[in-house]
């Protein structure tokens, strides 16, 4: 941006516009799942170092969000859901988003390495690379499996949190990884169903665009069944404790019920109630993940305090 262009602007970018580049809502999920990974680990962490580690994991996730907004500025502009983001609206330049993304990525990785350890920092660097390059630049525009494989990026935070505490990984954080990984497809396909023409207009090969809505509904059912089997099964494999198992049974029964409703519906029924079932399923999917990780956290705290 030149001085002249800065003077011509009627409204300069505010600090909040740059914060918006970091996708704060996604960051909240990252913070929570990374915190559960950190606290569920068997090694106690100094509270301030734990706080710093979570902060830098969140910053790294935010940085990858800024890189995603830089790369996807063209399609964000034509999608209703993303058209109000700072880059498509012209509040922040695409180059600025790139600079913020790269700068904050470097700060987050180095600071996590110094505050926690270099295993966690390496995992964070890989996560940023996976989301910005593998998902945003490659998968998103080339295959309907984009969010299936790309979901791995969102699944890493509990592994990074665990690594920040222990300096390595073991089975438990990878089970948490798998839980988020399997949860991502039904969550995003439900969104794709009620966002209707968004992905079509942008030319993003979501399942709804390449295979149609009926196939997407069947995929939601299949992945939800897989997720339910995994989620409940993980409760018997050392992940969490009785609270997790109880929460998993109830949540998965409800999630399967919602997926079944979506599967049985056709487009005419969905349009008649403005995709109420799909929207409810999407909202519940957020609760589903939050309660799963909340239960894991409670179980870990009960073990740490000697109750379990």
């Amino acid at each position, binding site marked *: 941006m030149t001085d*002249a262009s*800065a003077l011509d602007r009627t409204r300069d*970018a505010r*600090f*909040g516009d740059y914060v918006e580049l970091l996708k704060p809502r996604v960051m909240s999920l990252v913070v929570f799942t990374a915190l559960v990974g950190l606290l569920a680990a068997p090694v106690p962490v*100094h509270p301030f170092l734990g706080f710093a580690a979570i902060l830098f994991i969140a910053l790294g996730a935010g940085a990858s969000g800024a890189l995603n907004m830089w790369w996807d500025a063209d399609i964000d502009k034509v999608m209703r859901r993303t058209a109000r983001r700072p880059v498509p609206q012209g509040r922040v330049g695409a180059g600025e988003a790139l600079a913020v993304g790269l700068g904050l990525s470097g700060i987050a990785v180095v600071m996590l390495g110094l505050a926690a350890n270099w295993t966690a920092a390496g995992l964070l660097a890989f996560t940023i690379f996976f989301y910005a390059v593998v998902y945003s630049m490659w998968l998103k525009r080339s295959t309907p499996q984009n969010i299936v494989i790309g979901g791995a990026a969102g699944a890493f935070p509990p592994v990074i949190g665990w690594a920040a505490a222990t300096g390595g990984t073991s089975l438990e954080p990878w089970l948490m990884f798998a839980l988020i990984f399997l949860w991502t497809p039904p969550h995003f396909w439900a969104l794709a169903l009620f966002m209707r023409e968004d992905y079509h207009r942008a030319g993003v090969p979501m399942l709804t665009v390449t295979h149609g809505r009926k196939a997407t509904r069947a995929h939601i059912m299949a992945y939800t069944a897989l997720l339910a089997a995994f989620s409940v099964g993980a409760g018997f494999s050392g992940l969490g404790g009785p609270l997790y198992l109880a929460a998993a049974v109830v949540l998965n029964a409800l999630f399967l019920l919602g997926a079944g409703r979506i599967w049985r519906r056709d487009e005419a029924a969905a349009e008649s109630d403005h995709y109420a079932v799909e929207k409810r399923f999407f909202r519940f999917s957020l609760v589903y993940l939050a309660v799963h990780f909340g239960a894991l956290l409670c179980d870990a705290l009960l073990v740490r305090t000697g109750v379990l």
Partner: protein
Amino acid sequence: MALHREHELHRRRLSLNLGVGLALVALAALIFGITIAKIANGSLMEAYDHQPRASELPLTEPTQ
């Protein structure tokens, strides 16, 4: 267009400048806090101070 000391641009950018300033102060405080926490945790902190560093001295066997 000349930039004056109190140009309108400064007022427009006040929120951004304040935000960046506060973020930098927070980062400095965080690095200070990490340092204190690491030392309190017993981490080894060494820097060159015109003295041989303890970790570079040859091990000496205790003699009777």
